[in-house]
């Protein structure tokens, strides 16, 4: 593409955007609204993911050792496990401590005195492990499973599974919504470009008569699509992130334990993705409407 052509496309696109301001506004705002909705879903999913990770990192894993394991062996095991990357610290809880904690209520103390003695305490020695922030829980659990001294362990599995299911559901629904909204906005962009195409039919016919190639005819429309996509996505990013902090604050008020927040890096990546999506939507909508430009630009109706 020569510089003269590019110059022509730019000036044509600018003129056409000005002339069909209402059409341009419809296309730009369609892209903008679709991207705000897509972005909102993606943000919700990312925050949910972040919340889940945070929950994982704050998890406390309790490993119940086998009855025959002595306190000394338990301490040796705890020393060995402390060297694992995922573990921040380990507390060894003897059966006596466990019993005291279990029956910490004054009424329960009497039960303790009546039923349980040092000799017939059924509680096993346990290791309470605090997981390091940002660590994944699953690899740690896999390692613990291989320890012969450990009988079983608990980490709030049910809650965990629910959160993971919710996160998965959110990703799938977000993806579906992104695809649906993408298609819907593509359809609207396609139709508005098609309308402007009919408005400019005469111009296209003349262009073709004087020897313009199909790509030359498409050029200004593609530049317009690019500009509309760019402006639409820029506005969407502005709206999305100005309301993001506000919504997050409200959520924290409503849900006391809600403390999820994705970092700046992720926000930046999401903005870049939305920006690209906007441009792709604008350009592909234009290209789609112009695919049959040869048939569309006949100078005279077929006939004798």
């Amino acid at each position, binding site marked *: 593409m020569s510089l003269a*052509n590019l110059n022509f496309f730019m000036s044509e696109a600018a003129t056409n955007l000005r002339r069909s301001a209402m059409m341009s506004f419809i296309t730009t705002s369609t892209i903008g609204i679709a991207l705000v909705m897509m972005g909102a879903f993606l943000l919700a999913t990312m925050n949910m993911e972040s919340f889940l990770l945070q929950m994982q990192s704050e998890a406390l894993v309790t490993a119940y050792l086998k009855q025959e394991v002595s306190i000394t062996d338990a301490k040796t095991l705890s020393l060995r496990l402390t060297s694992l990357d995922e573990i921040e610290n380990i507390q060894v809880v003897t059966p006596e401590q466990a019993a005291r904690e279990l029956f910490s209520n004054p009424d329960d103390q009497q039960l303790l005195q009546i039923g349980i003695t040092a000799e017939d305490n059924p509680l096993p020695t346990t290791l309470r492990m605090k997981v390091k922030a940002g660590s994944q829980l699953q690899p740690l659990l896999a390692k613990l499973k291989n320890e012969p001294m450990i009988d079983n362990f608990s980490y709030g599995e049910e809650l965990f599974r629910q959160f993971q299911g919710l996160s998965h559901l959110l990703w799938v629904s977000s993806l579906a919504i992104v695809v649906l909204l993408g298609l819907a906005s593509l359809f609207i962009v396609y139709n508005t470009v098609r309308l402007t195409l009919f408005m400019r039919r005469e111009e296209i016919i003349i262009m073709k008569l*004087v*020897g313009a190639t199909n790509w030359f005819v498409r050029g200004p429309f593609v530049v317009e699509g690019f500009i509309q996509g760019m402006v639409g996505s820029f506005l969407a990013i502005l709206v999305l992130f100005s309301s993001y902090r506000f919504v997050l604050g409200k959520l924290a008020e409503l849900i006391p334990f809600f403390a999820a927040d994705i970092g700046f890096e992720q926000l930046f990546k999401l903005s870049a993705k939305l920006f690209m999506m906007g441009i792709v939507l604008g350009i592909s909508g234009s290209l789609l409407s112009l695919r049959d430009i040869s048939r569309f630009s006949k100078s005279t109706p077929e006939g*004798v």
Partner: protein
Amino acid sequence: MIELQGVSRIFPNGVRALNNISLSINPGDFVFLVGPSGAGKSTFLRMLFREDVPTEGKILIDGKDITTMPENRVPYLRRNLGIVLQDFQLLKRRTVAENVAFGLRVIGASATVISNRVQEALEQVGLSHKRRMFPTELSGGEQQRVCIARAIVNNPLILITDEPTGNLDPMISQEIMQLFLEINSRGTTIVMATHNHNLVNKLRKRVLALVDGQIVKDEACGTYAYE
């Protein structure tokens, strides 16, 4: 320059617009295409700039078969042709100079080339003083002159024109025809479809008469009559 070999055009509804036409037009010729409405004149012209393709036969322009030419080569063919139609087909929101420049812009000509050639073309049609005006501010004859300027701005080998005087009064028609004669005198081949008896009879150029899709008369220095 232009050669038609057994060209027929049959429309999907069965209408035979052109029927086995064979002829040749030499470089620098001025050819009138006459005949009643519906005779196939417009179809004939549309075939020359590959707006339509024959059902049978082939058309050669400058030795190249344009009937089998791929769609993406058609724009390059048209850059060597000038096309002037009856309805002026000017862009109303562009000035006279911008309309004429359009033919050069689409081929990516530089600003200097555009400026010089537009000036030359407008001088040839006598409208250089109205270069900044809009088509709606011009008379019908002047609008047709702008179309002619746009058609000749690329120095085409062939000028194809369909009823260029159809919407103009006799006086203005004569002026426009004078302009075509001048263009022809510089070596451009002209093929013109017309219903204008007086001009055809007065100019005594080659006349091709088309009736029901067939050439019924091909006469050098001919007249309009074809019955």
